[in-house]
């Protein structure tokens, strides 16, 4: 059986689905990702589906499940690169992927995750270090 590779880049796990997945391959990816999140302690997962020419209800459900599992394991998931025809079809199929964050491409997905991480860090930072960083946020 083919396997979808999971790459670690800094604090992010990147998955780029390049094959027409059998259902078993999608389920295997779900398990592999959960394992890698725990092994690496990464806080972000990006799933690139720009090579997929369809997302049916099974793959859609798998993406939603991956996002839920990641959240329970302290990581956020962003699905990136969905093709316009796939988006139109998914919504008409009745699947709007609730609970899944999306971005148009990997770069924007990484920015989204970095933003979350920064916000999270702020909420948990001690008061004395905050001032300089907060100025940056206000400006941006």
């Amino acid at each position, binding site marked *: 059986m083919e396997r979808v590779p999971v790459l670690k880049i800094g604090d992010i796990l990147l998955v780029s689905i390049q094959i027409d997945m059998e259902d078993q391959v999608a389920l295997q990816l779900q398990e592999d990702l959960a394992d890698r999140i725990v092994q690496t302690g990464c806080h972000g997962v990006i799933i690139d589906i720009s090579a997929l020419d369809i997302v049916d209800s099974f793959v859609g459900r798998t993406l939603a499940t991956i996002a839920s599992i990641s959240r329970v394991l302290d990581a956020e998931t962003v699905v990136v690169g969905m093709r316009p025809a796939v988006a139109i079809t998914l919504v*008409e199929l009745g699947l709007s992927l609730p609970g899944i964050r999306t971005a148009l491409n990997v770069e924007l997905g990484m920015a989204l995750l970095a933003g979350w991480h920064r916000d999270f860090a702020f909420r948990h930072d001690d008061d004395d270090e905050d001032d300089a960083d907060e100025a940056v946020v206000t400006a941006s």
Partner: protein
Amino acid sequence: MTTGDDLAAMERLVVRSDQDVVRVRQLVRTLAVSVKLSLVDQTKLVTAASELARNTLVYGGGGTVDAGRVDSGRRSGIRVVFTDQGPGIPDLDLALTDGYTTGGGLGLGLSGARRLVDEFDIDTAVGRGTRISVTKWCR
């Protein structure tokens, strides 16, 4: 099958595994491209075929898929027929309701697939099996 349509030779695939569902998607994609369905319509038809082929496998216990070009007057399109000798569908109205499932899925396969195609005919009998024919026409 609707009468009056000129049906070219259909290709048949047997559906017995996950891999076969992938093959169905690839065949339907190739056919959809060959009659120049728009990209969105190709995507809709292939997605519907994927849902229905999975149903054939999961609920029907496997079966066959026949797919081919269909012409009616000036229109061309692709017809895909899914046949199984499984348990059949006891309550068709219920099975076509969004969110209803007996298989642990999302319950969108049948109802969603129907929305994605132009024609959707279903023939089912408890204990005998199910036959679903879908057609997408070029616009």
